[in-house]
């Protein structure tokens, strides 16, 4: 995201407002290099 290869959009009319704010704060942390999302190439499995 820091290099504009990806971005995040949210429909604020239908998403939970507090979570939208939390996601935007996390987005800033990612761009600032303060939070790293794991790159996990393993096949995801159902948990239910």
């Amino acid at each position: 995201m820091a290099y504009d290869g990806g971005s995040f959009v949210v429909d604020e009319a239908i998403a939970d407002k507090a979570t939208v704010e939390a996601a935007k704060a996390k987005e800033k942390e990612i761009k600032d290099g303060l939070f790293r999302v794991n790159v996990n190439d393993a096949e995801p499995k159902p948990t239910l």
Partner: protein
Amino acid sequence: MSRFAASYFTRRAVLGLAAAALATLGLAAPAAAQKAKPIKVAAIYTVPVEQQWVGRIHQALNAAKDRGDIEYVFSENVANTDYERVMREYAEAGNDLIIGEVFGVERAARKVAEAYPDKAFLMGSSFGPTQPNFSVFDNFIHEPSYLTGMIAGKATTTNVIGMVGGYAIPEVNRLMSAFMEGALSTNPDVKFLVSFIGSWYDPPKAKEAAFAMIDAKADVLYAERFGVSDAAKERGVKAIGNVIDTAADYPGTILASALWHMEPTIDRAIAAVIAGTFEPADYG
């Protein structure tokens, strides 16, 4: 970092170091000549350009064409069994840069590129670049995928999220995994249904898989493939978009999307070919 991530970076790091070492020793491909705009670019897609992933590549190339940087031709719906032939035809036709996705023909595509060392190849790939002229790219949108997961985790009232993907390859897995991690960060009680339809473009099959998940109480769907959002809209549940923004097509249904922007990668490759500096590399 997971062991999978560690192995991934190790593989790419090793390939990158190998390429750098070859360049240092003077064994890399000789520098290509500078080219005048517009350069000739061809793209080869295994699915229709309406499909979201290749659609992003197609969009970035059309933008370059509109700027006058390239002349652009493409083939869509090319079967993996026919991919090598189409690559050769575009190389023989004098295209300067050939772009595509070789997830199903990794080895054969590299052999074709090797036969045309004066051409530049930039391919979506699960592996690293190859001398003398084969560069790779991938869609690293795991970060926005995590953020969409945060939204989805809070949105579900049944605590069940359904996820429909194409194939369980690293490029898909990492986005789904990041999404799940994000969802769990806002709702530790959330559970996931996961299904792969075995196709990159089969909206009816994806829709059918999504319907089954809704019947199993999923009220938020991760739409890695086309067709899932249609099911969400029909049944009145929410969906999370992937790669492109389809919110306008499904008003009130798409909660959030992780978008892929191919322009930085495409523009960098075109600039390198024009400057005569294109080298086998990981374009991100």
